[in-house]
């Protein structure tokens, strides 16, 4: 079992540790709900060091990534700008989702999921050998990652780590900057403002403790999951995998199909029919909790919940579900929850942004 550089700090804080993709990670430090609310209302932090940064180095890095990723890094015109993208198989199935950052014309950095890191690295390495043998791919296990998220995340980060302030204060959303040995980006996975920090492994615990001393609450994977679900963000391996395309995963906005650029998976995507789509559900009434793999009955046929749970912000159960295409927001479906079929409202994610519900409070039994 792998441990991140922050593992000693988690142990010291009494974290409940779980196995996640081969890593021993904090599930929570006491109460997942309190951690969730801390991020929505104040500031919380997550150890995301299990994820893997991979530097793509050398002349032609941009062209290589334009051919490797479904989103187009030509959109990255200013150094420091980041982009969300899927990495696809030839048939359009999703190998992983990632963030790619333009650092220099000869240096781009992609950050991939923990459970898929070795697969991704092997896949990219295969492409590199064929298409751009002069490029180098460098996995960066020398960096630890801390995501600081919440309405007060930026202020508290600057209090804790004042040396990062000058570089990070001017950053707009989805921009990052080098600050000494660290890299700080205004990105996240919670639907709140904040930063993701890449810091040297040697100083990671020190940074974490300074953030905690400034009142940033340590948060585990449990809160991370409810926060990203409220924010309508997909979790790889759950809401999408190699058997589905980005178009079936609510990610059409991340795929540039309408121009001359070719990329791995483009032909597959164009050839495949898109008969399902990922959408949001809000449970009506209080009959239970929506969970992954529950069957959904819609007017146009059956579907399945891919991620579900209790939304602490809405105080209601919500889910992402893959349903027959054309199941419109506002329509109602029935979900098999144990022996019952519970009514749910189809909505367009996200459910929550910047601490506020984006879903009109649905009333059970109201006419549809």
């Amino acid at each position, binding site marked *: 079992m792998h441990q991140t550089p922050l593992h000693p700090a988690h142990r010291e804080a009494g974290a409940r540790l779980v196995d996640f993709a081969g890593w021993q990670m904090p*599930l*929570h430090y006491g*109460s*997942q*709900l309190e951690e969730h609310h801390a991020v929505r209302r104040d500031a919380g932090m997550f150890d995301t060091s299990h994820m893997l940064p991979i530097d793509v180095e050398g002349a032609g890095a941009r062209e290589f990534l334009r051919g490797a990723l479904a989103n187009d890094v030509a959109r990255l015109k200013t150094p420091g700008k980041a982009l969300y993208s899927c990495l696809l198989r030839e048939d359009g199935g999703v190998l992983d989702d990632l963030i790619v950052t333009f650092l220099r014309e000869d240096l781009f950095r992609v950050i991939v999921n923990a459970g898929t890191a070795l697969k991704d690295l092997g896949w990219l390495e295969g492409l590199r050998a064929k298409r751009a043998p002069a490029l180098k791919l460098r996995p960066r296990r020398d960096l630890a990652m801390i995501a600081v998220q919440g309405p007060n995340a930026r202020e508290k980060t600057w209090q804790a780590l004042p040396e990062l302030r000058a570089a990070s204060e001017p950053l707009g959303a989805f921009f990052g900057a080098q600050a000494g040995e660290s890299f700080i980006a205004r990105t996240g996975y919670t639907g709140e403002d904040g930063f993701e920090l890449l810091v040297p492994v040697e100083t990671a615990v020190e940074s974490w403790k300074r953030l905690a001393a400034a009142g940033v609450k340590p948060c585990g994977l*449990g809160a991370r999951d*409810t926060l990203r679900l409220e924010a309508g963000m997909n979790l790889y391996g759950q809401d999408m995998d190699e058997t589905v395309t980005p178009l079936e995963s609510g990610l059409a906005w991340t795929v540039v199909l309408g121009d001359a650029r070719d990329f791995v998976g483009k032909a597959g995507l164009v050839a495949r029919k898109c008969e399902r789509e990922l959408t949001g559900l809000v449970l009506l009434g*209080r*009959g*239970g*909790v929506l*969970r992954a793999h529950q069957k959904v009955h819609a007017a146009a046929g059956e579907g399945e919940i891919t991620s579900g*749970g*209790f939304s*602490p912000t809405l105080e209601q*159960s919500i889910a992402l579900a893959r349903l027959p295409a054309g199941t419109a927001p506002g329509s109602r479906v029935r979900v098999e929850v*144990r022996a019952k079929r519970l009514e749910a409202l189809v909505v367009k994610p996200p459910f929550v942004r910047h601490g506020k519900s984006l879903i009109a409070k649905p009333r059970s039994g109201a006419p549809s």
Partner: protein
Amino acid sequence: MKHPNDLKYTESHEWIRIEPDGTITVGITDHAQDALGDLVFIELPELGRKLAGAEACAVVESVKAASDVYAPVAGEVVAVNDAAVEAPGDLNKDPYATWLFRIKPAAGFDAGKLLDAAAYEKSVT
């Protein structure tokens, strides 16, 4: 974790209090609430429902998972704690005050088959 000596327990993590009137009160243990995490949903059996021993008759769901609660003994449901349904988080704060349901045991109920606190703690460590 606390597992009071004046209660009985099951291996499926229910606690049982035998009341002076012969009914038994059922909840889930401190160990169970800790393992489940923050509770967000509780469903209780209907009043008057006749339960077989070890029958799944209630559901507790946390932020993490759903878990069945089993009837520790055969009998009839004579009371349910609606306050727990309204505020599932209370069960995390005090699993012994936040009872779930009360059963009038069927004839032949033998409290000696239930675990005492020491035996329960041994079963969860």
